[in-house]
């Protein structure tokens, strides 16, 4: 992500906090609104960041991924049902990752092995995830009255979480913390390891990787499935960290906003994270406006993330170069 774009994003987030501050009712302290905005932003950014990192590994290897939404939705259901049946939240998370990776395996098989158009493959996965989870949740979960295993407890940073006003920032649930770590790990893996070099090579010029003795298919399968597992953690956020239930279509388009964040972030982990924060801040304003009685129409504020997505994807804030081989199946002769 370029410096200018980075500053633009920070400015936008500051602006959104500023709007909340300017419009709060006088009996709420400014510091409380600011802290609440930041804490909610961080929380809302979690599924977006995970979705964007999922797309990152997939697309950096040259496989377009519009199926983040479907992968997260299926994983949210898998995490919920396994968590509920085993009464173990940890098992739920593992199940989410497995389901995410399996959905990714399907995407890889369709687009790498069968060379199906990757947008078609992604659409298939999105529709399938919506259909299967919707069916199972009404026909199995509701009929059997399965209830969830509860929510992951917040992990508090000793000391800092006790500080007044900014304390809430340091009381996040596990997946939010893991997400922050994953941004760093993803960067190191992609740019500092041999495997990362291969992933980027097959995403830029697969012929060159093949000629250098790298298996394009194997590398793409691995990258897509690593992405799927990360999307699976993102799915776990919905049913293990946000609410303890599964509802049909509960990802509500966040997989697509994650994709927008990935693109806006220029296919880098840090860029994707910062872009996710921006979208999350827009959402946070929406929630905090209701909470603190800020007198802006909820619909207008709620529109924000989507308007931002359109503006950003239209290339208004400069264009970035996608991985060159994205969307192209590799055919060796």
């Amino acid at each position, binding site marked *: 992500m370029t410096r200018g774009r980075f500053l633009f994003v920070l400015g936008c987030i500051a602006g959104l906090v500023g709007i909340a501050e300017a419009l709060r009712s006088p009996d709420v302290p400014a510091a409380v609104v600011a802290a609440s905005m930041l804490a909610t932003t961080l929380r809302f950014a979690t599924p977006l960041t995970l979705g964007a990192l999922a797309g990152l590994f997939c697309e950096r290897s040259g496989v377009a991924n519009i199926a983040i939404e479907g992968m997260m939705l299926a994983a949210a259901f898998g995490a919920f049902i396994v968590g509920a049946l085993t009464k173990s939240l940890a098992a739920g998370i593992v199940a989410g990752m497995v389901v995410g990776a399996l959905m990714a395996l399907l995407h890889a098989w369709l687009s790498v092995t069968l060379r199906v158009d990757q947008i078609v493959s992604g659409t298939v996965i999105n529709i399938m995830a919506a259909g299967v989870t919707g069916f199972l949740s009404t026909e199995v979960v509701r009929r059997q009255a399965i209830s969830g295993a509860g929510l992951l407890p917040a992990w508090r940073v000793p000391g800092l979480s006790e500080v007044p006003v900014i304390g809430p920032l340091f009381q996040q649930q596990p997946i939010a913390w893991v997400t922050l770590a994953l941004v760093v790990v993803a960067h190191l893996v992609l740019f500092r390891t041999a495997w990362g070099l291969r992933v980027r090579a097959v995403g830029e010029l697969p012929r060159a990787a093949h000629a250098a003795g790298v*298996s394009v298919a194997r590398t793409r399968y691995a990258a897509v499935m690593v992405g799927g597992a990360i999307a699976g953690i993102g799915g776990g956020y919905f049913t293990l960290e946000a609410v303890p239930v599964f509802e049909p279509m509960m990802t509500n388009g966040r997989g697509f906003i994650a994709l927008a964040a990935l693109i806006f972030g220029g296919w880098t982990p840090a860029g994707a994270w910062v872009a996710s924060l921006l979208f999350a801040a827009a959402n946070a304003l929406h929630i905090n406006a209701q909470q603190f009685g800020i007198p802006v129409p909820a619909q207008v504020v709620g529109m924000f993330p989507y308007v931002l997505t359109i503006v950003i994807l239209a290339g208004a804030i400069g264009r970035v170069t996608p991985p060159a081989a994205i969307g192209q199946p590799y055919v060796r002769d």
Partner: protein
Amino acid sequence: MSATDPAGAGGGGPWLLEARHLTKRYGAVIANRDVSFGVRPGEIVALLGENGAGKSTLVNVLYGMTAPDGGTLLVDGQPVRLRSPRDALARGIGMVHQHFMLVPPFTVAENVALGHEPSRHGAIDLATVEGRVVALAARFGMEVDPHAVIRDLSVGQQQRVEIIKALDRGARVLILDEPTAVLTPQETEGLFHVLRGLAAGGTSVVFISHKLGEVLDIADRIVVMRRGEVVGEVSPADATPESLAAMMVGREVLLRVEKAPATPGEAMVVLRDVQVAGDRGGRAVDGVTFEVRAGEIVGIAGVQGNGQTELVEAIAGLRPVAGGSLWLCGVEAQRLGVRARAALGLAHVPEDRQRHGLVLPFSVADNLVLNRYHLAPLAIRGVRQARAILDLARNLVARFDIRPPIAEVPVQALSGGNKQKVIVARELSHDVRVLVAAQPTRGVDVGSIEFIHRSLVAARDAGAAVLVVSAELDELMSLADRVLVMFRGRVVGEVAGSEATREGIGLLMAGGGRQLGDVET
């Protein structure tokens, strides 16, 4: 001219790499038929043949990129199976592809490391690779910065990176597929220097080319292929360009174009300070001024990517003229569409015939009338006249010797040379006053080249103004009455065709010329 069996080839020591009786088919096409080929340690072998003769298929098999349908490969006398380039690299076979296998946003070191990356504590260890790159570059007299990003390097520099990449993998045999196609004459000299150094150090070199002079210059031994078969093997001492051309084509070939001196008439193409934008922004053509007169052939030379493609597209109407003015046949033309320019008498042989010249699934006949299918008698009140189209097409197929001589087959079934003849036939079949031909003989067999050259000269002699852009200096020097050289979007020099030398033009192509503000009129 019988196929040689390398195992029986006289003397010279054991083969390092040997192929016996290789066969490879693509559908109904036999790319390699019973090909036997070998290379000894420290030897430079040239593999000579026309496009489509099967050279690339053979070396792709040697490098494990392509699996053969039959035959055996031996390394150090031991039979091997190469399932992928990884297997080939492990046995000391390295390759520099015609289209470089370098990842553009990666650094030199990252590209060299790819596929055998050294790691320390899980992190990739690029410092080690950088050290090896510097050492190899120094040893063979090449200048390469391991931190440079590939997309910032010139084609010649990228080629050196490819060579270093292969050597770093421990290549004992280095295969180069048409390595000089993208180089200036000076860069070619530099490459030959490196290759001779490698051979002197014991590395074997397989050098693929269709350029006769180069092959005679660099090779210890020349193996000639035609139509998928090895048709002969000669030592450069016993060969001449004419004898090699005859082996390649299978008959005597006229290497120089025969033409009378030009008699230039009035200016038919006039460019005044023309600017054209490139694909990635910026000015690909940056203020070009020249004229082409009726009855002359003007050639444009230059290393690929110096604005020639954009210039031709701007003249043809495929790309907007961003600044300056363009006149065709006395009419200001920069705002005219393609069809309006054709109506003025402009014919265009595009650089990329597959994309811009032909509709591949359409028949030869439909492709032959693409520029006037809408005019009577081919269409009457908007209805196609199949009979008239076919009659015209059959006539052109016969006149331009298009093979197979069937107007109904899809044009994609034709060879490169015959596809090009379809385009030339179409463009020259109407009243041509200006002909713009970009790379008219790229990927075309020698026999068709001869025919296309004669057609261009005939168009000139009939009074057309002809502009030819080509990467082949020999072609320009023999065909053009005047040669302009482009460098970084500008015309940096002009030489008369009769006085042109490879060295002189090569120097200009590399940017060593004076800037020409205006060409005298």
